């Protein structure tokens, strides 16, 4: 290909455009003030100004990123343990525990965590991690268990070490499942992270929570639109990764 730069853009484009759109949306939100003023003529404060939307988006991304990373480490790690020969006895228990974590409403976790951890970031992270582990754990277990028995048996018989079998056979074969789990987990997480603002964590939930308590629908819409764009950008990125994998296979 002689037009290499275009090739590169085409390749990273699917990752790039949704995020650029998200950033543009957050940066340009103040310019929509006249729009909201027209929509809600009686509202004296049609634009959320306590923090910039870029700042909120960044704080939200950190909240989602940190909690998802921790949940991924715990979820994938636990899945590896309970699908190993030694840990297999705990397989049903791990599923049950993760399901309980998922059923427990994040708001309730927040309420319980605040007395122990105080207000702000810490209780929010705890609630998000608990809430996000299940899809990652479940999909990782499904992916690892999906590796055919014959493949595992052959690999062992040919002389793969347990670690070699995991790294070169089981994890690559489970990767599409793990990615699907992460995709679901992240999208749930992005929506759920907004409740962190009810205990004082800065996030895209801040305008939503304040808008709800002050009956300012404009704030709610401004926060919600960016949260939605964030979720869509994340989803598109996972779709792009999946497309890359499909093309290679």
């Amino acid at each position, binding site marked *: 290909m002689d037009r290499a730069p275009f090739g590169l853009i085409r390749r990273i484009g699917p990752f790039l455009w949704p995020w650029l759109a998200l950033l543009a949306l957050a940066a340009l939100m103040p310019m929509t003030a006249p729009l909201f003023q027209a929509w809600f003529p009686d509202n004296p404060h049609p634009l959320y100004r306590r923090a910039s939307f870029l700042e909120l988006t960044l704080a939200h991304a950190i909240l989602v990123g940190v909690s998802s990373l921790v949940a991924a480490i715990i979820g994938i790690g636990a899945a590896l343990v309970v699908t190993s020969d030694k840990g297999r006895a705990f397989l049903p228990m791990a599923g049950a525990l993760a399901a309980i974590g998922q059923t427990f409403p994040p708001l309730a976790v927040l309420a319980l965590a605040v007395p122990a951890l105080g207000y702000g970031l810490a209780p929010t992270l705890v609630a998000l991690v608990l809430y996000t582990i299940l899809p990652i754990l479940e999909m990782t277990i499904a992916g690892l268990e999906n590796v055919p028995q014959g493949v595992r048996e052959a690999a062992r*018989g*040919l002389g793969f070490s347990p670690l070699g079998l995991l790294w070169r056979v089981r994890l690559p074969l489970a990767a599409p499942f793990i990615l699907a789990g992460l995709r679901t987990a992240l999208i749930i997480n992005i929506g759920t992270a907004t409740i962190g603002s009810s205990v004082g964590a800065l996030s895209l939930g801040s305008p939503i929570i304040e808008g709800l308590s002050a009956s300012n629908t404009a704030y709610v819409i401004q926060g919600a639109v960016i949260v939605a764009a964030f979720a869509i950008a994340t989803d598109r990125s996972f779709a792009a990764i999946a497309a890359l994998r499909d093309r290679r296979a």
Partner: protein
Amino acid sequence: MIEIEAVSKSFGGTAAVSDLTLTIADGAFCVLIGPSGCGKSTVLRMINAMIAPDAGTIRVRGQDIAAQNPEHLRRQIGYAIQSVGLFPHWTVAANIVAVPRLLRWAEPRIKARLDAVMALVGIDPALLPRYPHQLSGGQQQRIGVARALAADPDIVLMDEPFAALDPPSRLALRGELSRIHAETGKTIIFVTHDLDEALGLATQIALMRQGRLVQAGAPRDMVLAPADDFVRSFFGGPQIALRRLDLVAVAQVMKQVMKPGERADAPELAAQASLRTALDTMLAHRCTWLCVKDATGRVVGTIEIADILQAS
């Protein structure tokens, strides 16, 4: 040489193998056979330390395997199974050279060995860049056999490798395996419950029943000198007379010279074919005698239907 000495193994209180002693010589094609659940697969999987025996010792190449690193041992022993178990995310080429890669061979050596194995097993080079799901069952198992042979091990373990194949693929691969054994002189331990497969491939047969070794010996001994009624019924059954013909090669009973004035205008047959094949060829051509050729295609003698009757 593989020496299995007084080996026992039970799973959850049920004995799978009881006090089994068996020696497999270098270059043997040893077939472990018996009804399902007789413990033959367990014996096979104990040889490469995938299952540890409860009692007894197993020595491979003179060394107790209990004292060896199991992964290191397995990389020195070929392994092929019924479900094949090719790595679905690797190409055919990567699948074949899996063990040389584990052994960290240099790339040129791996490449050279890949070519050699493909020639040995009869693999179309066009298959190399494909993925396992693009192959037929027979092609997959051919790759499975190539993978087992890739690191050029002197010992190969095979657990019902052809059991799931359709009859034509099964026969073709049986023929290939027989030729590979003859060409390479590797020690092959082969588990099956298929009597024809056992008699067609083995130089040594070990018949098991309920975890015990009932009789071990040359295929001929198993059929002609059964130790008890179980062996007799296992190797007998219908067509026992035909099975006996399986055990004798044409070369053993053919006449070296042609009859005076005769020309080689009868159907031809390879000298290493069995008498059963000879009889089949005669029936197919509705004739009573055949020309016998050696490996180079030269006519070396004749065989008549009377010779077959006499030998049976």
